[in-house]
């Protein structure tokens, strides 16, 4: 059993680490404070192939693996979550649906610019009253004369409103269908809506607790029209499709939880060694040592779970359960580890003097986004109790 990362993933880790320390860390505080989208960093990451890691070279991707993608997300989040979620959501939610379900023409039109990071893609599932509960979706699309007309709204959508956002793939009710038990169900399909489509309005950014430099907005559709060919995947397959997208997306978000926890530990350990109290560094106190030891141990366990989920996906095996477990484990860990890191920093942890304050704010969404912890528990318990 080989639990070491392959050479190329190890080398990528070093390079992303160097990039994060040299290019991201010096601007992270300012980006967060000014809520400025990291355009320059996205462009640089695009040149390095990091905006399309797990997609084949034929469509403009780097031809890499999910494991490499997870390692890159981890190392970015270790320094800054806003930059990491921009790359992570773009890959898992923006580009993945086109790669998985797009026809040849859609792939040829969208994937090269998406994989190069020249355009950003977004995924619109969540609505004011529906998210993981997809049965409650209200956004509707009707087909008439070769044109889809869309009405409804989406919220908490990442990467839809930047200067380089190219499209959003949304879920919408496109009719009614009958399930195996003869019950009438909404027919859900996915549609590609390009930015600039009349009737597609992108709302003002939210005032968030964290992830301040990432783009998150509500979207609304009032008679927005797209050609029939913008249907993504077969009509009526929207539910299955987004479940598959979310499964894969959980690996990315789990890698974020892992990276954030590691970043919090890095900061906490460095501070504990340099901060003096009662005549010496606070790292000599058993209470601090216990926190550091527990964080390091939980992080190592979580790392194995995240990499396992990624490796299963790369091997073409069923990864849904492991991805949900990795997401549940790392979201909680990110919250706990960043809290402990703030605690170790004392009063300095509560002000924006050190990165741990930002880490603490950035962590909470990881128990919510890409399916809440409670939804992960549903996924996991269904598999265990089946």
């Amino acid at each position, binding site marked *: 059993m080989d639990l070491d990362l392959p050479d190329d993933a190890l080398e990528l880790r070093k390079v992303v680490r160097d990039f994060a320390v040299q290019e991201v860390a010096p601007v992270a505080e300012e980006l967060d404070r000014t809520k400025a989208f990291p355009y320059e960093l996205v462009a640089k990451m695009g040149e390095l*192939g990091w905006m399309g890691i797990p997609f084949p070279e034929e469509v403009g991707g780097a031809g890499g693996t999910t494991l490499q993608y997870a390692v890159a997300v981890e190392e970015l989040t270790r320094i800054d979550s806003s930059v990491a979620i921009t790359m992570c959501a773009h890959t898992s939610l923006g580009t993945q649906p086109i790669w998985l379900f797009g026809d040849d023409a859609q792939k040829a039109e969208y994937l090269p610019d998406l994989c190069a990071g020249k355009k950003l893609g977004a995924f619109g599932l969540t609505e004011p009253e529906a998210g993981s509960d997809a049965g409650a979706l209200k956004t509707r699309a009707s087909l008439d004369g070769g044109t889809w007309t869309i009405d409804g709204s989406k919220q908490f959508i990442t990467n839809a409103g930047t200067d380089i956002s190219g499209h959003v793939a949304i879920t919408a009710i496109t009719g009614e269908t009958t399930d195996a038990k003869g019950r009438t169900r909404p027919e859900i399909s996915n549609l590609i809506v390009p930015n600039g489509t009349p009737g597609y309005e992108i709302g003002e950014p939210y005032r968030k607790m964290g992830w301040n430099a990432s783009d998150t907005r509500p979207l609304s559709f009032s008679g927005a029209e797209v050609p029939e060919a913008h249907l993504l995947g077969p009509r009526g397959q929207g539910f299955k499709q987004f479940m598959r997208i979310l499964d894969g997306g959980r690996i990315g978000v789990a890698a974020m939880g892992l990276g954030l926890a590691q970043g919090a530990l890095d900061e906490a350990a460095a501070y504990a060694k340099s901060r003096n109290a009662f005549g010496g560094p606070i790292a000599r106190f058993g209470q601090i040592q216990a926190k550091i030891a527990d964080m390091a141990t939980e992080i190592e366990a979580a790392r194995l779970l995240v990499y396992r989920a990624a490796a299963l996906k790369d091997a073409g095996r069923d990864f849904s359960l492991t991805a949900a477990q990795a997401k549940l484990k790392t979201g909680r860990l990110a919250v706990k580890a960043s809290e402990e890191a703030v605690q170790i920093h004392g009063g300095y942890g509560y002000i924006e003097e050190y990165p741990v304050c930002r880490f603490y704010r950035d962590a909470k969404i990881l128990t919510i986004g890409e399916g809440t912890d409670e939804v992960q528990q549903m996924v996991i318990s269904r598999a265990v109790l089946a």
Partner: protein
Amino acid sequence: MTKIVVLVKEVPDAAVQKQVDSSTGRLDRSGEKTLNPFDTHAIEAALQLKESGALDVDEVVAVTVGPSSAVKALHKAVSLGADRSIHLTDDALVGSDVVGTGYALAELIKRESPDLVLAGQQSDDGQSYAVGAAVAEYLGWPGLTQVIKLDVDGQTLTCERQAEYGYDTVKVTLPAVISVGDAINEPRYPSLKAIMGAKKKPLESLSLGDAEIDASKVGEAGRKAVWTGSQEPPAKAAGELIEDEDTAETVEKIVAWLDDRKLI
């Protein structure tokens, strides 16, 4: 057409605590290893000469002398943009001093007959700063160190080099050996494709015999510099602390202190 050889080295990662193994008198190089960060500036300089068209470069070749693990440093070098690499590895090389290493590298360079040899200013482990100069000596080529600016005019390079007192501007005609200071450029990051493609670029592995290098001039057999011991530098006497309670008084104390030592 111009060929550039870049000298590279595998060194312990910056985070690894470095110490001399007293039983062998050699640096303990165990633990995580990486491409010598100073060498990435030499690779970047070669690529910039190629990409800018300043020199009509058709090939950049990374060359190293080191143990089998040094292959990873060569992979890194080609992921950064070198076209191929050469690895001289042989048990008889173990324990080579700077002159022995310079001799072996010079022999490898003769096989390639490049127009320009670039090196980093120092290795992050041995830190001799001298390998580039030793190579130039063996080749009988001009050697320049700490170069932070390169301007090309045909076969003539105008180089700005850092000196203790400022900057020297030196003209040199190719072929030449130039070690570049780390201020010369900002090395690029390798793309993911380049990282994954590194193992596909040609890597030639040579023994001393393959390269027709005289084994008596390298390794333990050929070394003239031998580590015999080390000691901490003598501790400095504790300084005198003057607390600034009354500034007029503090100034008086400082002036008196300087006056006692005939410094003013």
